[in-house]
Every structure is written in structure tokens, then in C-alpha cells.
């Protein structure tokens, strides 16, 4: 099982229903009942997804037993985006240097 925080976030984001739940929570906090409505899914099935999201630290839940409204916690999501951005930036920065290397290679290629 994934134990590091980033892996837990990735695993939580793997499911389309959970991503849809997060998208809904962008609009504001919601109860399990409200979150179940757009999906052909029972309350307990949605609760299961919420537990995964809660463990990944992606949502926070209120303490009142009945309502327990859910709200989004964006911090772990930002870590994932940061990772993806770093990966793209690594290649982007490298490729800009490669442009210059290729310019030199083209010159010596023509000289031959």
C-alpha cells in the first residue's frame, strides 16, 4: 500500500468519482447526501470514497455526526501539481539548452 503522502494523493485521485467529488467541493462544502446526488450511488458508497479522500488529506469533515459536511483541502493537490510541473520544467529547461547545442551541431555539420 502506498505510504508516502504523494502516493496517497495519487491513489486518491485515481478514481473518476473521487475527482468529481473534489470538483463539486470546489463550489463549497457539502454533505454526503448532497455529494451522492449527482452519482447513481448510495450514501455508504460515497462515504467510502470520502474516507479515501480524507485519509489522503484532500478533504476535511465536520464533527457533527449527522451532517459531517465535507470541505476541500487543496494542499496535497498542490504537491501533485508541483511534481508534474517540476517534471515538465526539467524537460523544458533542458530542451532550451538543447536548442543551443543543436545550433552548434548544425554549424559544424554544414562545415563538413
Amino acid at each position, binding site marked *: 500500500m502506498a505510504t508516502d503522502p504523494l502516493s496517497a*494523493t495519487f491513489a486518491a485521485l485515481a478514481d473518476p468519482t473521487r475527482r468529481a467529488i473534489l470538483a463539486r467541493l470546489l463550489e463549497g462544502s457539502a454533505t454526503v447526501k448532497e455529494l451522492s446526488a449527482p452519482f447513481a450511488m448510495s450514501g455508504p458508497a460515497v462515504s467510502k470514497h470520502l474516507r479515501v479522500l480524507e485519509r489522503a488529506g484532500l478533504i476535511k469533515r465536520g464533527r457533527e455526526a449527522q451532517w459531517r459536511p465535507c470541505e476541500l483541502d487543496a494542499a496535497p493537490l498542490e504537491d501533485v501539481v508541483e511534481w508534474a510541473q517540476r517534471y515538465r520544467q526539467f524537460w523544458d*529547461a533542458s530542451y532550451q539548452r538543447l536548442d543551443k547545442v*543543436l545550433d552548434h*551541431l548544425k554549424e559544424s555539420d554544414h562545415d563538413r
Partner: protein
Amino acid sequence: MTASTTTLSTLSDEEISISREFDAPRHLVFDAHTKPELVSQWLLGPEHWTMPVCEIDLRPGGSWHYVWRYQDGTEMEMRGDFREVEVPTRIVHTERWGDEWPETLHTVLFAEQDGTTTVTRIVRFPSAQARDAALATGMMSGVERSFDLLDDLLAAVA
């Protein structure tokens, strides 16, 4: 000429691709990706890194080994093996960072049209182990989705 854009996109649950155009013929772009004296000049990521070790044994079954060093002395290394080598069009190799990330399989394609070469790197995350498959699936769709989510979040906060 302005620099081309590096595009990162999701191909499937387990694959992403990173693609970029270069204003140079394919044989030169291929050389720049496979000759250590050239690779070590550009495959450096952000500023202030150098590549003191760059070993490439370009043949099926051959291996490669890169070590990067930051200005404060911090080192990072990466290794892998070549599975397929078709000069100058295609390379398939594995990549290992260490224990934190699963081994990935990279297919690097070099396509030339009208003197411009497009390099497409397809990164495949493993499906061999259940955990890694789950991780990879989450990583791929999560990355794409979380870009949208973050845009929304930032708009909401701003």
C-alpha cells in the same frame, strides 16, 4: 526564433507523453540524445546543475547512468537499460530513480519533417505490481485533472 513549447499530455491511465519540436535535422537531434559528450551539455534541468557522470552504452541490453550535481554538492542519479535501439528513429529504455518511484519505461521517438524534428517521449508507468499500477493510474489522470482543479482553486482564492 522563439523556443518551442514542451507539451505534457496524458495518453492513457499509465502513460504520459512529453513532446517538443527542434529546428534541426533528425540525425543531429538523435546524436544529441545519445552521445554522452552532447547529453551532458543540455540534460541538466533547472539552473546550477552539472552532469559529472554520463555513461551511455547504446545497444539493446546496454545500460546508461547519469549523475547530476547541484552547486551545493547535492547529487542525484538515474540509471536504466536499453531495450530497443533504432538509429535514428526510436529508443526504448527503462529508467530508475531509486526506491521512491517505480521503474518507468520510456519510448523516445524522433520524427523529421521539413528539417524540423519532433521528439516525443512516452513514459509508461508499471502495471506489474498492483500498488504501482494504482499509483500510476492515479498519477496520470490525477495530474491532468489536478491542473484543472488548481486553476479553479486559484481562481476561487484570487
